């Protein structure tokens, strides 16, 4: 049994590391996106700052900090300032329950590789991401501009609609694992079929659920082809039209942090988490699970960027019809079939 002091110290250290790693990952996924989309469009992307433009995120950050922070005169001030903060807070909170590997012992402290291991982790993530829509909606409303308002309205309608199919697509996985704990869900996916196909949920009856999750997750994070809330050809920049400098950067950070959370969740629920081939000496066996986890998250992020560079945007009526008439029935059907199969087997 550990004392309260050591619990507080360990939690603080882990929180600081997690936030630092997440923000660095956010900065470099922006770099990755600019680079990959550049190459897709036959350009080079950032090249000037550092080798391969690697210091570009740093330069961007400094630019955001020193830019003039304009507050338009007609805004509803309290909410206008609070909205980007809410976005970032909710985006960073959801990372706290995500495990990136098994238990480790560092300097005599035996601890899981996540900030806290709670048995309703998945529900916490769903709750926090569902609160995240307030940042966008309030930004759109408090800006007191028609483009922002339209963006905020679109965002809230879209996120409420897609959250249903997102939640339903996860329930199949929950039925298979029999637990809300992300650690238990990952543990339920260990092992292989016929000696080579990993027993990940995506190969184990939840293939449809994975694709429903994939599409709902794209919509939840307002990414192409679902980026109607900030469709620049119609709405200037949507809900963040009136924001500048660091306040704008906060929305940007929140969007990419949400992308990373969604990628982590996909990895944990459908792609077997940190399971993968493990060999070699003890230190490699300790590092490899974390490596596999990060590699899968990277692939998912790459997919995000790839799709952004490939697909055009939906029309708004298509977006709503897709959510309610296609994804939702599909998710329900998957849920019913999974439930039946699990009930018949047990």
């Amino acid at each position, binding site marked *: 049994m550990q004392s309260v002091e050591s619990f507080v110290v360990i939690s603080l250290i882990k929180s600081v590391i997690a936030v630092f790693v997440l923000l660095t990952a956010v900065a470099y996924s922006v770099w990755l996106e600019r680079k990959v989309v550049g190459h897709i469009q036959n350009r080079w992307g950032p090249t000037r700052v550092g080798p391969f433009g690697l210091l570009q995120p740093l330069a961007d950050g400094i630019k955001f900090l020193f830019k003039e922070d304009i507050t338009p005169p007609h805004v509803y001030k309290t*909410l206008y300032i609070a909205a980007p903060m809410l976005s970032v807070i909710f985006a960073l909170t959801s990372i706290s329950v995500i495990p990136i590997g098994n238990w480790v012992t560092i300097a005599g402290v035996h601890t899981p590789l996540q900030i806290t291991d*709670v*048995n*309703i982790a998945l*529900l*916490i993530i*769903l*709750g*926090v991401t*569902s*609160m995240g*829509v*307030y940042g966008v*909606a*309030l930004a*759109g*409303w408090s800006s007191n501009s028609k483009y922002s*308002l339209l963006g*905020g*309205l679109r965002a*809230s*309608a879209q*996120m*409420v609609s897609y*959250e249903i199919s997102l*939640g339903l697509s996860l329930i199949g996985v929950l039925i298979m694992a029999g637990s*809300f704990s992300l650690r238990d869900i990952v543990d339920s996916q260990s092992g292989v079929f016929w000696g080579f196909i990993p027993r990940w949920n995506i190969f184990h009856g939840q293939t449809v659920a994975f694709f429903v999750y994939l599409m709902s997750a794209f919509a939840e994070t307002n990414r192409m082809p679902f980026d109607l809330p900030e469709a620049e050809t119609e709405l200037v920049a949507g809900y963040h039209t009136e924001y500048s400098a660091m306040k704008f950067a906060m929305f940007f950070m929140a969007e990419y942090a949400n992308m990373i959370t969604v990628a982590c969740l996909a990895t944990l629920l459908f792609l077997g988490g940190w399971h993968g081939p493990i060999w070699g000496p003890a230190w490699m066996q300790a590092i490899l699970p974390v490596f596999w986890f990060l590699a899968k998250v990277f692939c998912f992020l790459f997919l995000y960027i790839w799709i952004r560079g490939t697909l055009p945007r939906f029309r708004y009526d298509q977006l709503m019809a897709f959510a309610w008439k296609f994804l939702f029935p599909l998710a329900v059907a998957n849920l019913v079939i999974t439930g039946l199969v699990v009930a018949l087997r047990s």
Partner: protein
Amino acid sequence: MLHLALFSIFGAICVAGAVNLLVQRHPINSALSLIAVMASLAVEYLLLGAEFVAAVQVIIYAGAIMVLFVFVIMLLNAGEEERTTGSRVAILFGIPGVLLGGVLVAWTLIQRSGTDEVALGALPGSPTTIGWLLFHDFLLPFEVTSLLILIAIMGAVVLAGKPEAETRQAGKGH
């Protein structure tokens, strides 16, 4: 000790949010206070050991229903309320009524304090227990409730939808 302190703090936030909900003149501020009330209620549930109820409270009330409230306020672009000087009925019956209700609740609580004390987290609150209760012990009431909600939704659709003839005419006109 920490539990009690957190419980009191979030209880105070909850009450303050509820009061603020009534005092604020702009509907969006009232909606945001209601979200604060919902969220602190969720923390209270969590502190009492009902983790599943807490998570569902956040997801459904704070995350879905209140988003729709905010959505409607934004869509209708509701402005500030006008304040009236207060009706005579409210002063004559409302305030004594509230006082009487408060005294009754406090009296009941004081009468019952000390009996039937339950330790924190001793009551069933895990997802497994709640699932078992909902889909085994209370299956029929649960299904009947869901049917009632479905009927209410259909009623709302019928009331909100335009009559068919009117829609057709509008279609011809354009």
